[in-house]
């Protein structure tokens, strides 16, 4: 079947089939919608948490001097390149019965997937935010202080100046989270319910599974959804951050 698929049909044919499938088959439609919901909820939760942690860390590291600062920056940069399967494995150890989070029974749950995506996205959000806030001219921070700003006011002025870079950081974190396969496969288990709705199956893990099973029209449709999501997010960023001074 796979051979036939590759030889006989073009990408446009698969796309057409995928659209027809989505329109005509309620079962597949529910399956796909539940996968999108799981993907979005897990990735957005992870990125919100990553931003809440990463942005203050970036501001602190960027604007204070302390022993070991270069080591911290090196660790953040290293974290940006962490292999996702290794993260998945470590998170699986952590949430398994013998792990430090074993009592929470998180194995093969969305919460475990959020943890693994949080670990993957936080260094990205932190590292890119750090680059953005440290690129803000010292003179602007001096101006905020000289105008009577407190440390918080100066930090907020810096965030405002670096907003385009920070949005990029959050987007990069979201991109890292939503397009990630290895760790969510390990800690989530790629599970669906008997009625076909997703428990821990995400767009990426579903694409991987559907492609392996030869259901290319579904895989293609899911891939299209994934790309469309990224386009929508980029569009929102352009719309919200598009005002230039």
């Amino acid at each position, binding site marked *: 079947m796979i051979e036939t698929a590759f030889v006989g049909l073009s990408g446009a044919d698969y796309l057409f089939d995928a659209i027809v499938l989505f329109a005509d088959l309620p079962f597949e439609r529910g399956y796909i919608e539940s996968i999108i919901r799981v993907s979005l909820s897990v990735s957005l939760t992870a990125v919100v948490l990553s931003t809440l942690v990463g942005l203050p860390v970036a501001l602190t590291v960027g604007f204070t001097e302390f022993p070991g600062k270069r080591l911290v920056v090196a660790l953040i940069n290293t974290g940006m390149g962490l292999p996702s399967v290794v993260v998945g494995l470590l998170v699986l150890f952590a949430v398994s019965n013998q792990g430090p989070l074993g009592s929470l029974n998180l194995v093969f749950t969305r919460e475990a997937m959020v943890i693994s995506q949080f670990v993957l996205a936080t260094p990205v959000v932190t590292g890119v935010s750090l680059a953005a806030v440290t690129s803000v001219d010292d003179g602007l921070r001096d*101006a*905020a202080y000289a105008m009577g700003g407190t440390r918080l006011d100066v930090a907020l002025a810096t965030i405002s100046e670096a907003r385009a870079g920070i949005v990029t950081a959050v987007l990069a974190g979201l991109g890292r989270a939503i397009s990630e396969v290895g760790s969510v496969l390990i800690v989530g288990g790629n599970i669906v319910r008997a009625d076909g709705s997703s428990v821990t199956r995400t767009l990426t893990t579903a694409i991987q599974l559907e492609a392996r099973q030869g259901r290319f029209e579904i895989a293609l449709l899911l891939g299209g959804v994934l790309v469309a999501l990224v386009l929508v997010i980029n569009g929102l960023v352009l719309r919200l951050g598009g005002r230039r001074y």
Partner: protein
Amino acid sequence: MAQRPAFRSSQQSQSTTISLSNVSHGFEERTVLENVSLTVERGETLAIIGPSGTGKTTLLRLLALFEPPRSGRITFDSTDLWSVSADDRLTERRQIGMVFQSPNLFSASVRQNVSYGLRLRQGWRTRLRQWAARLVRQPPMPAVEAALGTVGLADAANRPAGSLSGGEAQRVAFARALAPGPEFLLLDEPTSDLDPRNTAVIEEAIETSRADGLGVVIATHDMQQAERIADRVAVLLDGRLIEVGATEAIFTDPDDRRTQRFINGELIY
């Protein structure tokens, strides 16, 4: 004294002098200022002149309370500003406006830049309410309009800061320092990068501010500018204040030979 413009606040405390007393300061091993004592009164313009790298900017940053001096005292009237609580110091700090050599404008509209200091002085609830209101329409801010009028940019409030020329940007920076109604203005080489026309506008705004009762401290290496606008001149050389006096006296009959040489344009390193 000239009539108090709309942007001057009557709620502020009325410090009459700001002083450095035996102040020394430096960075790591390097001493930048050594045993400097200087008092500036409201209603006067004091020019600090001296070669580049002699400590003028450091002196202004100490007056602006960016950091405590290594030794010595910085006082408003008789209050040592580094021995009071952080909240009290913030209150006193907000009596000072500062303009830097570069405009350092935020990536926002001219109005948002000039209103920045005013917004900082409001409570968080008011700030949030005004931020939400700004999404719908810009509420009028008389102090912002008045400050922009002082620098001849009353019609530029809605322009993006990034669209301004260098001279206009520096004038907006001046208006930003003026808008909250400070008691003292610290100006660090504010016209060194400007053309004569923009320089004239800034100097006129300095004169207006002085006439309104502000104490103005301007660091400059432009001798002619110091002579034009200052009531008194302080000569700083290698971190030491070698002479302070009335402008005319400094330029016609200085006590220190090095002052005479500096004014004559000779190298005195």
